[in-house]
């Protein structure tokens, strides 16, 4: 039988606790990974890489980061754009200060720098809750953008005020700079993305994840049963910052190549990533991918239909996009506050019982 637990016996608690309890799910998952790593790089072209796949992977990492903080630990952050900027500028400074060190290490290093910054801005969460905290994170967003604009050290005093990524190679293959090929860009992002998802999944199913969720669901009760709110909240901020920082570093160095802080990492980015996890599903790693895919693909599709097929003006289509995205957010919150991930879960549940309705 397809898609059944029958015959797939769990004989230990660790088997019972795995990510994909169903055999078919596991097969599909490994097949997807194999295709993503082995087939896609062979057939990918510039358009697919730069319009869809690379931004999708990078936003998925950012969404994982924000979802740890907001979806799992319940601390709403509107500072994602600012933290991505920290990742980007940290990566730029590391790249230019240590040109001989591998770019991969710089990206991870940028993650650690962002981790520290994010933890510092997480400190108020010990006193401030709910909306108040959400607004307080705006302080991070605006302050960081202002800082990277005003202090020339961050952009190495260059006249344009922009940062641009010099060429860096791994095994002789350029990963940054103008000569980067689509498949290389894609593969490096894919690797970081899969690693991030793996780590995030493990953290969220273990004891740390339970601490976060306990704080999210009822912080006072969590503290009384023994969760230290200080370490739980700050660890969520730290790990969230780590992933968001990596996504910011990739976004700047591999994807954009050059960035201006207000334009690339403004408040819009904060909202975009927040929308991804709302639409995808708060507290779900799968949701991060679903939400990122949805909001990356939607504008491309709308532009394709509106501009290329109907021949409408691009700004008209852009306005329609705002209406559709805003409308969808409200629609999702009304119909399914748990997002695409929940729809997917319900669908799988139905499939498991098919053809019986209950």
């Amino acid at each position: 039988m397809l898609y059944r637990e029958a015959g797939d016996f769990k004989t230990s608690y660790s088997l019972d606790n795995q990510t994909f309890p169903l055999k078919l799910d596991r097969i599909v998952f490994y097949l997807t990974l194999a295709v993503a790593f082995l087939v896609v790089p062979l057939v990918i072209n510039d358009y697919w890489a730069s319009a869809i796949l690379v931004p999708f992977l990078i936003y998925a990492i950012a969404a994982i980061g924000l979802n740890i903080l907001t979806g799992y630990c319940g601390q709403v952050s509107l500072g994602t754009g600012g933290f991505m900027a920290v990742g980007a500028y940290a990566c730029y400074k590391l790249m230019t200060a240590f040109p001989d060190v591998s770019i991969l290490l710089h990206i991870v290093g940028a993650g650690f720098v962002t981790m520290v910054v994010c933890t510092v801005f997480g400190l108020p969460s010990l006193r401030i809750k709910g909306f108040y905290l959400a607004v307080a994170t705006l302080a991070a967003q605006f302050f960081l953008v202002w800082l990277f604009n005003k202090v020339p050290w961050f952009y190495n005093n260059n006249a344009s005020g922009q940062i641009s990524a010099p060429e860096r190679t791994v095994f002789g293959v350029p990963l940054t700079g103008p000569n980067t090929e689509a498949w290389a860009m894609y593969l490096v992002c894919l690797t970081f993305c899969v690693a991030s998802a793996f780590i995030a999944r493990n953290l969220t199913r273990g004891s740390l994840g339970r601490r976060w969720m306990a704080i999210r669901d009822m912080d006072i009760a969590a503290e009384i049963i023994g969760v230290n709110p200080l370490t739980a909240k700050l660890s969520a901020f730290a790990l969230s910052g780590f992933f968001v920082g990596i996504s910011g570093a990739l976004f700047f160095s591999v994807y954009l190549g050059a960035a201006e802080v207000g334009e690339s990492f403004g408040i819009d980015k904060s909202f975009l990533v927040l929308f991804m996890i709302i639409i995808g599903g708060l507290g779900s790693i799968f949701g991060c991918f679903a939400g990122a895919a949805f909001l990356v693909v939607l504008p491309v599709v709308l532009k394709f239909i509106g501009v290329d097929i109907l021949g409408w003006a691009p700004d008209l289509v852009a306005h329609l996009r705002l209406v559709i995205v805003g409308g969808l957010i409200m629609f999702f919150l009304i119909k399914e506050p748990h997002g695409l991930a929940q729809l997917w879960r319900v669908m799988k549940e139905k499939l498991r019982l098919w053809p019986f309705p209950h």
Partner: protein
Amino acid sequence: MPASLLYGVEVLINGLMAGVLYALVALGFVLIYKASGIFNYAQGVMALFAAMTLSGIMEGDIPFSHLINAMFGTQLHSFGWNVPAIAAILLTVVVMALLAWLVQRLVFRHLVGQEPIILFMATIGLAYFLEGIGDLMWGSEIRTLDLALPQGASLAIENATAVLGGDDFYGFFIDKLDVVATMVAAILVAALIAFSQYTKYGRAMRAVADDHQAALSVGISLNFIWVLVWTLAGIVALVAGIMWGAKSGVQFSLSLIALKALPVLMLGGFTSIPGAIVGGLIIGMGEQLFEYTIGGPFLGGATENWFAYMLALVVLIFRPQGLFGERIIERV
């Protein structure tokens, strides 16, 4: 008095005027939050939308003309008439009331009882939606709003105060529009307070703010009250939009003042109308003064981008309930 100090006072007064506008937007937040517990992020976009609608109606533009033209290949732009300001304002109020009804009917009625943070996120969605609709209806180019409000420096004030300083001081430079804005804001606040204290609906509004269940049990229609507060918030947004629009044109940046209203609320508390006003004034003055004394000379300027948030953050760390809120006693 030395001239630099006097210029500092001038900066303070101008900050006060900016604060009035923040307070106006914050007032819209407070109205909705008190009655329904919804933290309406879209308040700023409502101000933008209201100003766009007002300008569009006055100039006789056809709503959605770009979309219609694109869909049917027509060349519609304008009805070819100009609507007088008063009539246009009344029409805009009707539009805002309609919007309030739609928002309540289509969105928030289905979200009753949801967690506050879900409601907040829904209003972010609403903000995007409204921004898009506004652009679709009236186009996205910067619009002017010509209501013949007095503008430019007030010579009377300048001349009257010139004597305060020495030769380096030419009197306070204060925009007449700011003076008008302050007066309008004061009238609006007085009217709102009178409405909520002395009318039947005002009392019902306060009852709902106090206790939903109790209000329901004495026969107040929650739905009606919610539409009412959204309408009032729409009117407040219109006033804020007119003032800001007259000052710097009707454009997207207008919706960003909504963001400034957030720290105002954090200082003043989400439920207090006087708190919103005092908070607005503090933020308005504080950011101008900080820019004038520290930000501009030592930090490279543009500190008003973040000063308000940082101030609110610091205050909240020491007083998590805001400046005017009551102490929070947590229970299990």
